């Protein structure tokens, strides 16, 4: 499968390497060329400098033939906009969006975006780590 990842932060870079490790074709987009160092020297995929909310940039990245699109930048609104373009304009079959704000996540889940909120997941993981530890002491 061919996946485009928008945002080469810690999550984006890790996701890119995981997908590439499974043998998938990956292109990573970021507005900052310095971000690509996070991919490491052995990343076999493609990097592209550009803003994923620009349709011309997405076309150049090959969105018309992409099987999956993941928006993992720091900006919820940027992720939301890029994901909607991928899903509704280019009909990418699988689109996932990172949204920090749980309320916005609800709104866009209702609108049909597949969303992942690190805020919700992180809090749940921390909670279970804390309460599990308590259980262990009893």
């Amino acid at each position, binding site marked *: 499968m061919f996946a485009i990842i928008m945002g080469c932060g810690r999550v984006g870079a890790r996701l890119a390497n995981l997908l590439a490790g499974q043998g998938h074709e990956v292109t990573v987009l970021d507005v900052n060329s310095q971000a690509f160092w996070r991919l490491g020297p052995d990343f076999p995929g493609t990097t592209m400098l550009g803003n994923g*909310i*620009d*349709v*011309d940039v997405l076309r150049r990245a090959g969105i018309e033939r992409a099987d999956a699109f993941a928006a993992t930048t720091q*900006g*919820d*609104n*940027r992720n*939301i*906009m*890029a994901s*909607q*373009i991928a899903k*509704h*304009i280019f009909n990418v079959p699988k689109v996932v969006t990172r949204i920090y*704000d749980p*309320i*916005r996540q609800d*709104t866009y889940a*209702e*609108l049909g975006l597949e969303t992942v909120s690190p805020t919700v997941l992180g809090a749940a993981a921390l909670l279970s780590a804390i309460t599990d530890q308590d259980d262990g002491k009893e």
Partner: protein
Amino acid sequence: MYAIVAGGGKVGYYLAKELVEQGHEVLVIERDSKQCAIIQEDLGDIVMQGDAAEASVLAEAGTARADVMVAVTGDDEDNLVICQVAKKRFRAPRTIARINNPKNEQIFRMLGIDATVSSTDVILGVLEQELPAHAVIPLLRLRHADVEVVKTVLDDQAPVVGRPLRDLSLPADCAIVLLVRGGTPIFPNPDTRLTAGDEVIAVTTTRSEARLRDVLWAGR
């Protein structure tokens, strides 16, 4: 009319000011507290500090009874989300978004925004009126060689349409190197005929640019 203006920068400030002067009820939502203070000082108690893309802020702003949501922050993505949340969550009857990238106009419409305003497009429109018709546009200048790569787009008024390149009396220091026809590049030979709609890319010395234009457009 109750109008909510999201974004209290220069556009939002003057928009709010005009709306107030016209007698409308206006609320400006702005993230930056300093900017909020300036608006409050100048325009009165019509500003609320907060992120307009957050549903709780829009709820407090009374978006459910707003007649129009106008999102004029500097970022297209923020304006999109503000308008979408206003529309989907609060049933705002009319949403207007400011955009920077003119190509977002169509995208925003497909994503449910009622209207967009692009200053880029407005300026472009004015510029195009000012530009001479049938322009030969410089694409690239090689200053050290005094050579230019230029382009012109033929229409059915161009006298060279229908003629092969060999018929054109181009100066020796000028060459047509590429045609783009319907998105397809054509590397022409002397028998290639020009058609209306062709994008003609030529390399010319600066001296012969005027002559090239005369040949392609016959002095039009």
